[in-house]
């Protein structure tokens, strides 16, 4: 996945230009709004933030993380602190900013930061809602290198076109897992792939059964 290798490139560019990197995991949090589907992408995005801080700690690139949900603030700070400590730079302070819990108000703040700080890199990843195109557009205007992806399909098209490196759907979660270089990750992902094969098999068998006029598998799964 290209986006993983792009993080060092992004940090290098920012260090060279002497400008900060903007990171956001979007407006939604982990427990409140439509929690079921947004928790994992948000946490995955924060793990990407951790990796970014780890790479950025050595050249001392400042990373401005913004959020539209207050509950992301402490988790993001913890992740950044443990990442920079692991990289041997515990003196780096996390810069996580809560802007507003109202969607458009948060967007206006993000756009302001991107264009005023003239960020060198713009990382927009997670369960990104309608803020996607606003932030990508602002990033394009200041010529930032953009990496991103949304776990919500309805906002993914803009990333495909406007980001330099994009991730689609589940790739976000998988990337975040791979980033740490943890050997247990391969095992988890392999296990997940087996589940996917099973799901595909169930769907195909179920369809064939329905075609043959035996919908018992469908009835079974409905309950």
């Amino acid at each position: 996945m290209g986006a993983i290798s792009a993080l060092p490139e992004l940090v290098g560019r920012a260090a060279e230009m002497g400008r900060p990197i903007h990171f956001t995991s979007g407006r939604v949090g982990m427990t409140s709004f439509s929690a079921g589907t947004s928790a994992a992408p948000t946490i995955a995005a924060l793990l990407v933030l951790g990796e970014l801080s780890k790479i950025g700690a050595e050249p001392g690139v400042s990373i401005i993380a913004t959020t539209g949900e207050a509950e992301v603030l402490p988790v993001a700070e913890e992740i950044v602190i443990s990442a920079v400590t692991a990289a041997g730079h515990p003196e780096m302070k996390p810069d996580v900013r809560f802007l507003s819990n109202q969607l458009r108000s948060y967007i206006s703040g993000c756009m302001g930061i991107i264009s005023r700080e003239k960020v060198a890199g713009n990382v927009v990843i997670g369960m990104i809602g309608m803020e996607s195109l606003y932030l990508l557009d602002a990033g394009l205007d200041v010529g930032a290198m953009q990496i991103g992806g949304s776990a919500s399909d309805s906002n993914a098209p803009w990333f495909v076109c406007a980001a330099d490196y994009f991730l689609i759907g589940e790739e976000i979660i998988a990337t975040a897992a791979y980033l740490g270089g943890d050997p247990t990750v391969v095992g988890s992902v392999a296990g997940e792939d087996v589940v996917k094969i099973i799901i595909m098999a169930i769907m195909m068998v179920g369809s064939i059964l329905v075609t043959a006029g035996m919908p018992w598998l469908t009835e079974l799964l409905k309950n």
Partner: protein
Amino acid sequence: MKEYSLRKLLSDKRFLYPWLVVLVAIPYIRPIGLPVVAYPWTKAAYDTVESIPEGSNVIVDTGFSPGSWAEQGAQGMALISHTLRRNCKLVFLVDAQEPPGVMMAERIMKELGPTVVDPRGKKYGVDWVNLGIVAGGVAAAAQLAQDFHATVKYDTYGTSLKELPLTKNIRGVADFALILLITTGRAFPLLEQWRIPYAKTIKIIVATMGMGLTTYIANWNAGIVNGLLSGIRGAAEYEALTKNYGEATKGMDAVNLSHIFAVVLLFAGNASFWIARTRKGKPKEA
């Protein structure tokens, strides 16, 4: 290098913005009125309203915020003016998830009042009631179906529901003929708790945002939803079906012009990209 500077001006995105505003503004000053052909699910929504007995009670969920007025408000006005012309009585409510929806119900009735519906006939308390926020999600919806007065005691102004002529005799789901869901996604659980268990006596029409359409088409195919409106286009189709042209029809003119504009831009952008690419032999980033 005059030609060069002209091209630079044309490729600046700021050059596009005024054109978009002009294209959207034109239909309001001089309407064009291309015919809007209704999708089958919109026609089904119209037929559903026509099929309920005249004067039935209708329950309406207006769970959307002012930001979506252009879409949801237009759909709400089209649907509600039709039900009112069939002399239906309306009971509005919203979920606790979308508090501004309470004001949206008032706004629909206010904007409809003097235009479509004969203002002399329709009175608050007799023809329509606004329950305000009904908190409690699924549990509250289920209880509301069985025992109306035990779940909600007062309307949004604090008047007792037992004193209002419309709600005085309502006991539960059996007294309603139709559900209108005019929401932006997270609907009040009327679909699960009212339509599915009581499918024989009550029908449902969903007015969703343009993006929510695919999910609901599956429900429409399955017969769970009787009729479906989607976004400003759905509203315009409904206005055409009821021959009651309003905001959405004008909006569709703007949609037509700006969509042509968008397609032209797509081709222009790609053409300039490919010309630059073949000239220089490598892709040029925007």
